[in-house]
């Protein structure tokens, strides 16, 4: 099998992992090639619109496990391939020199045993770092069940080390991934959290959950995320809309991957990490799933109209963050600018506030932009729902313009 075919097979098997970030590390090589950028750099965008910053491949797609949802499960009859460590180095270094990539994302199916697989990963990364003095970004998957000694060794070589939890509950895992135990994944996260420092996994850890393969509600998923952010200090939880690659009676048959739901989960994830929201602000037992029609922040505002409208020139930073259409950047801009002048609606536009969403929930200098009698849930909700659909409308109108 030639290198091109191997790459095709092993990139194809790796593509379902959502993570590709290359941020959070400030490594540089003293002798060889490569450095990392703290902000991360995207090098291309694939046909699905996801960023390509790392060479995302599996060491091998041979696997002793038989997880129901996975393309590489033992019982699937597909072409199998195995990279040698030298081959991975050759591709990585050659791609890096030409500025195709920011670094390597190496994962693997489990070949022979977790320890054996882990040793293979370590051998590859050691070659890159010690023989070729590669200073670019490396993200490696830790193999659940591998020994702590190997975890330590790998962590000292890479920027990010992660293990995928795959499903939010133990039950889901038992159903779809009978060989996987969440206990083992938790052990890895615990170990990385306790030992993390400038030399050991400097860019931190992340994980991934599959959305829509089992019956968990958004509430269960968000609670799991919140728990992991709190207990393991994860940098990111990635959500991956389930795509049916196998046929199995345990698996749902979906015509389309639940992309909108995935989108809502990401939006809520941001609210948890940067906007000081709690899961209980967004969801509860009575309302266990997100509103598909409006984003979680608008939804929160609509359900708490008594807290609004907020006065831009006086309300606190945390209150600013609660307003739909205002992000971290614009909230900070408002905070610094309002010290030196009184902000008007015109100024908000200049600061990057999305006024078409924010206008319902704010006053500037105690003035409301719309007719105050319109401050009603029904009216605002209808407009916000319409707002979400405008991109489609615009495209349609543009098309018509060209036709005329």
């Amino acid at each position, binding site marked *: 099998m030639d290198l091109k075919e191997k790459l095709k097979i092993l990139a194809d098997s790796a593509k379902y992992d959502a993570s590709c970030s290359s941020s959070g590390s400030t490594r540089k090589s003293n002798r060889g090639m490569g450095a990392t950028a703290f902000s991360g750099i995207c090098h291309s965008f694939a046909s699905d619109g996801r960023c390509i910053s790392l060479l995302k491949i599996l060491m091998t797609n041979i696997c002793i496990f038989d997880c129901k949802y996975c393309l590489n499960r033992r019982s699937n009859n597909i072409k199998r391939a195995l990279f040698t460590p030298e081959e991975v180095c050759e*591709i990585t270094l050659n791609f890096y020199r030409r500025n195709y990539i920011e670094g390597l994302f190496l994962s693997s199916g489990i070949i022979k045993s977790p320890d054996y697989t882990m040793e293979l990963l370590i051998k590859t990364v050691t070659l890159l770092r010690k023989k070729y003095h590669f200073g670019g970004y490396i993200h490696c998957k830790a193999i659940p069940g591998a020994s702590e000694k190997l975890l330590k060794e790998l962590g000292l070589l890479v920027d990010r080390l992660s293990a995928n939890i795959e499903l939010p509950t133990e039950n889901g895992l038992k159903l779809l991934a009978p060989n996987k135990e969440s206990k083992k994944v938790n052990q890895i996260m615990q170990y990385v959290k306790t030992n993390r420092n400038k030399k050991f996994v400097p860019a931190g850890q992340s994980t991934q959950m599959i959305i829509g393969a089992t019956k968990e509600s958004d509430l269960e998923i968000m609670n799991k995320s919140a728990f992991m952010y709190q207990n393991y200090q994860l940098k990111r939880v990635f959500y991956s809309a389930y795509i049916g690659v196998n046929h199995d009676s345990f698996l749902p048959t979906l015509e389309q991957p639940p992309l909108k739901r995935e989108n809502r989960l990401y939006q809520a994830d941001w609210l948890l990490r940067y906007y000081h929201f709690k899961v209980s602000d967004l969801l509860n037992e009575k309302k266990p799933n997100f509103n598909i029609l409006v984003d979680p922040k608008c939804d929160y505002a609509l359900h708490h109209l008594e807290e609004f409208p907020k006065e831009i020139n006086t309300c606190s930073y945390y209150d600013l963050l609660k307003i739909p259409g205002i992000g971290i950047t614009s909230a900070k801009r408002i905070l610094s600018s309002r010290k030196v002048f009184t902000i008007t609606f015109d100024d908000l536009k200049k600061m990057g506030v999305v006024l078409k969403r924010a206008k319902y929930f704010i006053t500037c200098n105690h003035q409301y932009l719309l007719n105050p009698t319109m401050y009603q849930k029904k009216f605002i909700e209808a407009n916000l729902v319409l707002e979400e659909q405008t991109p489609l409308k615009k495209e349609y109108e543009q098309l018509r313009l060209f036709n005329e």
Partner: protein
Amino acid sequence: MNSVYIYQDTFISLLNLIDYLIRHHIKPFQIKNTRYQVTLLDTVIHLKIEEDENILSKVIHFVGIRALQNMYYVFISDVDNLELILYYFYLNGLKYRENILKYRNLKCVDKVLKISSFVSHECHKYKGFIRFKELKNHLLYAEIEPVSDCLRILSHHFQKRLKNEYWLIKDVKRNILSLYDKKKYILVDANTFSLDTIKESEEEKQMAQLWKTFYDTIGIKERKNERCRRNFMPKKYWKYMLEVESEL
């Protein structure tokens, strides 16, 4: 009388001129570089001002390093009257000092921030989207066509990243070449250096093929999203990107 003041094309020279004009209470009609095409109504004025690098610490002292950084980004933009924008920005900066960036309600501040964010965005995109080809004798070569004059910032970036390589980056639009010799980079006029005779290395084709294979494989077809791709990677970058140039 339309007084047009001319500076010597460098950032330092422009700052020196602006500083001089403000100190002498002169309100310029225009400030332009030496490539300016004079019209009948203009009165062109060349002032003999020393190019003094101390102006940088002076500007930092008054408006702070972040404001200076923003001013530099405006300088390398392709905005028509960037010199006047910088003049009014600095004039206000002397009044409001390091608070100047907070005054987003002033036209000149708003413009400076908008332009500088456009420029820094473009520079950042190019750090990812630029593609090197390997020529014979291990030379790496890339071409770019940015709206803003990003070449210096990109050279600085790759000086750290590809420090044990010989590389060249050509700004096709401005016809300038950045040469790096494993120690430092210099910018030269592209006409002084011909690359036509140097062929691609034998490995180059194979690596380009591998990359295209990877690119075509990594996208998930059930998730195809052209709008999202174009949003993050606008077509203006595609010309020199081997993985998408065939789609143009």
